[in-house]
């Protein structure tokens, strides 16, 4: 913002002169921090929206593909607009100095991207894959002179993904997988519920082996465990109910009920 009012310091006082410089340094750091926080907040909101969207994808099969595409577009848009800016802010910096500023956005984004990836491939996106997703190619052609032939100038920017952030994002992912499973119970996509059980279980079992890697982990691990047990309970219920009647009958019944 404005700093002009503060310029009228006593220039003869060496302490004031020093602090004038500190002010500039601190403000520039703070401003950068603020800008990143703001970007992160936007990324969080947009990522959450993409996740919301993805949850609608399995309700009616016909539209699923287009919804997934829409979500993919959303995420791509985030990359193009927000992450590029974050990457520029972080260029030549010690990213850990600003990690707290973009960590919430990063985790939510990881959650969204890995969720999408899971829906498409039924596998877990790895850290290197995630890192390459956040390695951005920016076309900076515009900056060159206008008249001559345009030679595309592509710069590669990177938003570093620390492993801990990746893990915390994955922990959150299981929450979404759980929600998807619960939803499938009511929509009658019973196979999907069972298909979701093992992935969550194996993420859970892997997490169990991590020591105290982050202050956030214990809480997230707890939530993860609860998610797992909710899906286990859902599978249990289906199994129990399925025991009374043949499964195909059940699926069709529920499909009809919702299709009507």
């Amino acid at each position, binding site marked *: 913002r404005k700093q002009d009012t*503060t310029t009228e*310091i006593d220039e*003869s*006082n*060496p*302490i*004031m002169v*020093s*602090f*004038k410089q*500190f*002010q500039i*340094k*601190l*403000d520039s*750091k*703070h401003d950068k*921090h603020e800008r990143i926080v703001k970007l992160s907040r936007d990324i969080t909101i947009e990522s959450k929206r993409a996740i919301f969207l993805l949850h609608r994808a399995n309700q009616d099969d016909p539209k699923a593909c287009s919804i997934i595409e829409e979500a993919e577009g959303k995420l791509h848009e985030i990359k193009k607009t927000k992450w590029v800016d974050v990457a520029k802010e972080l260029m*030549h*910096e*010690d*990213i*850990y*100095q600003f*990690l707290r500023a973009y960590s919430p956005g990063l985790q939510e984004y990881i959650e969204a991207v890995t969720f999408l990836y*899971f829906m498409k491939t*039924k*596998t*877990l996106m*790895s*850290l290197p894959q995630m890192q390459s997703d956040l390695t951005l190619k920016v076309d900076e052609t515009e900056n060159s002179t206008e008249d001559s032939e345009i030679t595309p100038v592509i710069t590669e920017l990177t938003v570093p993904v620390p*492993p801990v952030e*990746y*893990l915390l994002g994955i922990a959150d992912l299981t929450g979404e997988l759980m929600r998807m499973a619960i939803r499938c119970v009511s929509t009658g996509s019973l196979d999907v519920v069972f298909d979701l059980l*093992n*992935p969550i*279980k*194996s*993420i859970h079992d*892997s*997490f169990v*082996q*991590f*020591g105290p*890697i982050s202050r956030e982990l214990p809480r997230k691990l707890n939530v993860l465990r609860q998610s797992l047990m909710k899906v286990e309970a859902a599978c249990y219920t289906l199994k129990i109910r399925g025991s009374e009647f043949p499964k195909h009958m059940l699926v069709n019944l529920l499909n009809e009920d919702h299709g009507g």
Partner: protein
Amino acid sequence: MALNESATNVFSEIRSYMNAEQDIREEIRSVVRDLEQHGREMLAVMQMVHQPDGLKDTSAITTKARGMFEEVKKYFVLISDKLPENQYYRFHDHWRFIMQRLSFLAAFIVFLESESMIGCEDCAQMMGVKTKREEGFHIDLDDYLMGLLQLASELSRFSVNAVTAGDYNRPVKIAKFLGDLDSGFRLLNLKNDSLRKRFDALKYDLKKVEEVVYDVTIRKLASTTITPAPSGE
């Protein structure tokens, strides 16, 4: 490849990464522990200025403490060597506390020697570190500033003991110094919570010193008449 298989692969890689980090942390923690012990000893040396004897000959004390800073440099080389490039802030919490204390000690020494505020450059140099991130293992500006605020508290106590030891002029100089510090910090838009909290304490430190000056003045003990600062200062 189903998710459970992919998960196993994905996580095993990360686990070895985590183990490596854990090892670095352990090593840094061990060096920092020794440095903290050394810091405590330096502090003990500096505390002697509060004693009447020490007050009379502060230069002996500051000389000794300056000497002890040589060893500080070695510790920072050790830490810096263990640190992966560009990851200073990943491990910053480990040495933040001791670095603030060392800043304070350096600032205290400089104030006793020359009644002036230590610059960030000088402070860094005494510890054998840089001031700019780009140049290597450096001192964070916030930590340097925290050192200055710790100095303010110490000087408020020092002004009391100075008067007790019969040195009536020192409080006047300290009041001037703290007044300048206060104005300086007011310029800053402090976001850092611990810094802001400490800055609140500066108000009280300053007030205390002002009261000492008041006591000395009203009893006409100080030799210096308070003249406005000469323009050339």
